[in-house]
């Protein structure tokens, strides 16, 4: 089913690698100049494929389901803080840049971004320079 809301904040169930039932958090903010998608890895609560392991397919799935323009897509991967004192469990945000062709998204490249930058991207107007992010 196609959905076209300007703002989405929900959980997303998807079939991951080898059809594994999987789940992630999903935020979408649709603006004139950008479609910002934040997928949150639920780690402990995700029984299937991680968003990192599936991000080109996931980006395509989200664009299809929510009628997002791949050219305007800004795709952010979010790993929340888990409460552990270890550095490896700290909150992180990564901007994922893809190649996009007839077969969809491919060749993901991750770049760490700050929470402040992500917050800015979710606001209108954003103070973040978009060219850097696409």
């Amino acid at each position, binding site marked *: 089913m196609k959905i076209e809301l300007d703002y989405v904040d929900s959980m997303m169930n998807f079939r991951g690698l*080898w059809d594994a039932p999987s789940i992630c958090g999903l935020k979408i903010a649709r603006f004139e100049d950008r479609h910002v998608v934040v997928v949150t890895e639920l780690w402990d609560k995700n*029984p299937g494929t991680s968003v990192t392991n599936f991000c080109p397919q996931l980006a395509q799935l989200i664009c299809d389901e929510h009628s997002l323009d791949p050219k305007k897509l800004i795709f952010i991967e979010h790993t929340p803080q888990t409460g552990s004192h270890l550095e490896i469990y700290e909150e992180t945000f990564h901007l994922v840049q893809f190649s996009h062709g007839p077969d969809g998204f491919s060749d993901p490249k991750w770049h*760490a971004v700050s929470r402040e930058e992500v917050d800015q991207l979710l606001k209108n107007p954003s103070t973040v320079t978009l060219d850097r992010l696409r």
Partner: protein
Amino acid sequence: MKFKLIYPKWNKLKEQTEFNLPPHGPVVMAAEIPDWVDVQFVDENLQELDLDDSPDLVGISMMLTTQVKRGLAIADAYRARSIPVIFGGIATMLHGMEVMGHADSVFLGEVEGRLSGVFDDFRRGELKKLYNFLNHQPAMDLVGPARRDILDKDLYYHKGVRMVDLFHASRGCRFKCYPCAVSFLGGRQFRPRPFDRVLEELETIDNPRLFLVDNSLAQDTEWEKQLFREMIPMKKTWCSHTIEDDPKVLDLAAQAGAWYVYQAVFDTSDYIRERIKRYHDHGIAVEGTILLGLDHHTEDYIKKLVDFLLTIDLDLAEFTILTPFPHTKAHDDMIKQGRILSEDWDRYDACQSVYKPKHMSPQRLEELYHWAWEEFYRDEPQNMKMFKLLKRAVERERKLGTYQGRRRDLVDRSFGKKVGSSLSVEDKRK
């Protein structure tokens, strides 16, 4: 029909005394092969692999990522002669997409209740490219005794001393640890086997020494206690992964034959010190498993960690370098941070740094890894510590009347290869 089941070889940890344990995955799988199939098993770690023979179907069972390249090469060799190849096992699940390119068929998931269908398909000439049961685990009462008769048992002896047999009482794991792919492989739901099936299998194993290869026994307190109660009359002596830190559980484990545990030592806290002590208080020895190269590991931290190990009376220690295996958080993090340096699976042997550590060069981490082994075993060599551990098992087995003694006909062989005998004159007289 002739089915040749191959367990590809891999390079063992260089610093560790070489062990070759009877593989578990292939014997669990073999239990589900229909009677009309004639199975030949080859453990390539110990046996020469003839690639010029002509079985009807070749099966390649892979447990470790370091077996993958070899497994694919074996498949390529057989398929070049039009002999079909099917893959299965843990590492096949981790590397499924890559394996598909070298296979006539790939089996993902657990075999119980499924394998006869696969062989029927083969017999009809309708072998499928993919059997995907990764997300459909079978009922645990279907898991029957493993088929250990496919093994050449005489190979799993070192100078007449029999290696442990591998056994599992449960699957799945409720934990999801940073470097571990078990949640992807077996799911997050802890799935114990019914006790009557556990006991049924234990009765088929003539070896008094076992390795309970369950991911962690510390999954469910009541189950753990009941498992140990049920195991007491079996008079086995066994090692395992973690046992729950509860005096009643540890007491029952000791009565059931807990010999030593593999316990992760991840910091220098009093908790770890006390944890080790509590095992020892119950007569259970501890082999510390120490993962080096986590993001908070500086050179100084690793040195302090090794110093700490020397103060907590570990019976043995095994050091490995963090390895970002596919389908782990470690892999996801390293990919995102652009820190993976190699995808040569032969290098994923846990003694090489295939990623860029946070606080040092990969070379320095490898140097510290070698240093850790040397430092830990400086005052008392590994074989001496292992001998002490073995002595504890022998003492228990002698008390219980289960001791099997060394096989005199194999004292000059180590895992099938001829070596010098180290039996004393007195031993030989026995």
